[in-house]
């Protein structure tokens, strides 16, 4: 499926998330199953199928990692964690250090340290996103799969931060 086509937006990495949300809202207004409760069975099925598609497309496009994956697969590049090369030693070391620091901050219930680590990783993640954006615009091929892997590491780290923040609230 092409989530960009489903949402009627241009197939590119840089997305205006505010505009995307408005598009999603207008499409929902047109096809949400709540609009078809009194309709024929056929229209109900159609509405459900389309609403699921639109929501799935939105979920993919608003997430940086899934958006990049979708663009690469649309360019015929096979994606998925098992296809990503093992990270370079330098990057691996960096991630291991960050993880260790996060685990320490969690143990010490040090929310500030958790925020600081998250901010640092967010900055790096944005940098990787810019790399992906440029790459996808010029040479959308398998050479980007490694960069995608980096973004996956960052996202996983930030997911963990999220869980720790919930715990420390």
């Amino acid at each position: 499926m092409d989530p960009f086509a489903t949402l009627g937006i241009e197939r590119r990495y840089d997305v205006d998330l505010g505009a995307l949300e408005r598009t999603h809202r207008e499409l929902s207004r047109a096809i949400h199953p709540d609009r078809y409760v009194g309709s024929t069975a056929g229209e109900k099925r159609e509405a459900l199928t389309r609403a699921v598609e639109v929501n799935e497309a939105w979920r993919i496009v608003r997430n940086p990692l899934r958006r990049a994956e979708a663009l690469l697969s649309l360019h015929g590049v096979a994606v998925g964690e098992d296809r990503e090369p093992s990270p370079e030693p330098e990057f691996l070391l960096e991630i291991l250090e960050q993880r260790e620091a996060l685990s320490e901050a969690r143990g010490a219930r040090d929310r500030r340290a958790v925020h600081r680590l998250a901010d640092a990783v967010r900055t790096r993640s944005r940098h990787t996103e810019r790399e992906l954006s440029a790459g996808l615009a010029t040479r959308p091929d398998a050479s980007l799969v490694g960069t995608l892997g980096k973004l996956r590491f960052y996202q996983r780290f930030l997911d963990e931060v999220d869980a720790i923040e919930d715990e420390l609230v």
Partner: protein
Amino acid sequence: MALLEIFDPKAPARPIGIDLGTTNSLVAHVANDRPVAIADCDSVVLLPSVVAYLPDGDVVVGRDAAELAAEHPRDTIVSVKRLMGRGADDPETRRLAPYEFVSPEPGQANAVRFRVAADRIVTPVEVSAEILRALKSRAEDELQSVGGAVITVPAYFDDAQRQATKDAARLAGLDVLRLLNEPTAAALAYGLEKNHRGTFAVYDLGGGTFDVTVLVLDDGVFQVKATGGDSQLGGDDMDRSIAHDLLDQVGLDPAAQTPQLVRRVLDEARRAKHDLTSCDGVHVDVADRGRVFLPRARFDVLIQPLLERTGAACRRALKDAGVTPQELDGVILVGGATRVPAVRRFVADLFQKEPLGDIDPDRVVALGAAVQADLLAGHGRRDDVLLLDVTPLSLGIEVGGGIVDKILPRYSTVPCAARATYTTREDHQTGFEIHVVQGERELVADNRSLARFTLRGIPPMAAGMARLEVKFQVDANGLLAVHAKETTTGIEQTVTVRPSYGLDDATIQRMLTDALDHGEEDLDRRRLAETRVEAGRILLATRRALEADADLLDEGQKETIRVACAALEQATRGEQPSQIHASIDALDKVTQAFAAHRMNRAMARAIGGRPVDAIERTVEHAKGIEAAHGPQPQGVV
């Protein structure tokens, strides 16, 4: 015979909204564009969610049942909502409560069971169905004919709890239009859409559940951003804290008391809590064992730990929604427990603003449910209002090492679907066990287990060769269906998640038949009436569609549809539900392509204002969906 009146085809069926609460339940409908609660014959709106089973087999619901609670604590079930969708071994069954729980027999579903009068065994679903039946009959007295119902559930209810609620509604003979999250219902009741856009928090502290939801309203669309809570925290816990304290003060061990005494003290605690909303202290006679003075300040201290738990959930929801308390445009209070002054103070401090409270917090949810029922039934003229709800918790499956692989992340807008592909770990593995779990934690053991099923019959292959595709689909009610398929062989299986704690379809059907006085005969009559109503609705919808989008069809197609409509009309004059159904299916077949074209047009209009090529691409893509599914798309749900 009551049934003839209920299904009087001349009386228009009115949609209703039901708040099935822990402590109280109520039903509302929309009259003259305004939601109103429906009172019983004594002008009382709130129906205590209490069901008493009498030795002669009679069942009593509401106030009369509540009065029996002190005398027959074991046979009088209160706050049953807390046990909906719970396993028989759930810690909730071991709390301070006067019931006799029965363990499931081998082979029986792992549902909670109560032993009540006359040695009868009932489940929470059946108890809830009694409450819904009472509300339905109250609505029928007022409206003559009840159409579909919107029933509210806490936003934080998991799949098993939602499924149990839907089962209870079916058992009560209600046509469920939608399960609606309580906080969203409250926002709808406030009519925020009329003059607001902004970000709102709904703080819902009910009898047994706590929910907080952050939602954004823009141009009539409510988009839920984050939701959290605790489906085991509420006003009941305040009563328990007070009861513990009272028993302590008169020197009685709370763990060693008879059910009768526990029930009495809990009732005294509840009364004290109510009195303390308006006065600074109360004297309580603790089951004739002593007189205790309970100042409000002490009460406030007793409930502080409970409030702190709600505070943590609120901070999490704000964080997830990415807003600060200052950025909120308003806070809505829901649930009787928000009448407690300490709760209001706590909320005002937490969100840094005075909460909105001008709609009765006990009624606001039912009123919102009535508005949604009215909108869904197409009666509402507010065509611009739409609720976009989300999954409250992530859904995933167990992979190696007891780890959860999240397939559908939380806060996915419903309805939604997602897929993931897995492979075998061992050579010659001929089955996949699929364990569906719900929750945010990494380890399976820390999440809620929803269901297990096995995909069998896969030919032996080397490890890593099989391809198992698992698809999760969540409908607009928040209910999950799981579809698993081995893609190299095409072996597939679909389950709607219910087995762990729910009742199967056959059981519900049997209960439904048993519940009707004359069994099968009434059921047939009822089926015929319902099928006729359904046929009328479809005919109306088809004619409206023909009027609106006639240009999408050529004359021949129009004629085919007209002929099918005429055949259906003819069938409704007969007495055979099966013939009516056959004609409905025939009409459905000849309108399938028309439905797809209409949906394409609706989507193209929705993204209007964009470059034309983008629209064309979408329409083209949408046609692609149609082609992929063939002329008769398989319903996956």
